[in-house]
């Protein structure tokens, strides 16, 4: 259903119908914005980069052949734009990925609901995820924050499922090391 609806919209857009573009943007703006936000951890960047992705869709829709679904294509464009941005940023600023975050004792384990409202914990989670290398952060975000399957992620990133799993494993290990105070003892 969703796929058909997108195909119709894409076809209308290819014929030059601006309204079809509006509909696609309105349908996907939240997902694309939050994806960019998860990757950049910055609202101004997320707005800028997510809109850049839609502009790219608009300008290169004639090159979309429908071999993958529209949203896979859209995600791929967004992820590539964000990855480029992150790589440029990483070059400017060397971050230590293994630096450990010092934490106050929080009993999140026996009371997960409280963790949702614990501001310090939430900030530390954001910091830990944000410190991952771009590729690992992307795979991790698509899996755990966007809920995509390994296969979908592989298709979006143009890599193998094995590589997706390897990135997930490394990301999780790094997060564990950074968040040791929460998960050990």
């Amino acid at each position, binding site marked *: 259903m969703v796929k058909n609806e997108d195909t119709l919209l894409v076809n209308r857009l290819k014929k030059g119908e601006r309204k079809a573009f509006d509909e696609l943007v309105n349908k996907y703006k939240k997902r694309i914005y939050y994806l960019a936000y998860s990757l950049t951890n910055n609202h101004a960047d997320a707005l800028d980069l997510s809109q850049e992705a839609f502009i790219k869709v608009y300008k290169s829709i004639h090159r979309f052949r429908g071999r993958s679904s529209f949203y896979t294509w859209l995600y791929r464009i967004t992820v590539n734009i964000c990855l480029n941005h992150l790589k440029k940023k990483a070059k400017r600023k060397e971050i230590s990925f293994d630096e450990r975050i010092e934490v106050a004792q929080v009993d999140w384990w026996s009371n997960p609901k409280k963790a949702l409202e614990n501001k310090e914990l939430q900030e530390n989670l954001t910091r830990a995820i944000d410190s991952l290398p771009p590729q690992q952060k992307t795979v991790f975000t698509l899996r755990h924050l966007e809920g995509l399957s390994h296969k979908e992620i592989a298709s979006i990133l143009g890599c193998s499922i094995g590589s997706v799993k390897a990135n997930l494993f490394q990301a*999780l290990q790094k997060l564990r090391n950074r968040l040791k105070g929460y998960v050990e003892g």
Partner: protein
Amino acid sequence: MISCRKVKRWTVDYLEGTLSEKKKFLFEEHLSKCSRCAQEIETLVKTQKLVRLKVREEMPETFWAHYLPRLKRRLEEKPLPRLAWRPVPALALATATALVLLVVAAISLLRTPSLNLENLPREVLVEEVMASNSELDYFIAESFEPEEIAQALLPREILNSLVNNNQEFTL
């Protein structure tokens, strides 16, 4: 018994519950005999549960209402300047002017002792600031504190002179 290396390779599928029954059995058998892997997996399980507790702050509906119009302006290549933490010279003159108006309006609101801003809803404040200059994008006013914008973008001496000369801009 399977090797520790194999345990590593199967970990993601184990954590996500996608290992076959047979592999899961072998995996757990290894954990029951290898305390190093058992400890490793235990902390990874906890980490995965922990990161899933991360909540995302939602953007307000007004932000979404402005998303498409803003995108269309960009498509028509009349982009609104992007607001970032950079010094004034990097901004186009028009933006700087627009910002100065916002900042002045905001500062006059924030610093006029007769106005008690603490009791004023933020949306009202933002709307007031927006109403003073239609060129400014809603997002700019929405996402950053006016004082933050001012301090990040404008040199101290300009700020001072603005504060001293802001009467005509008072909302």
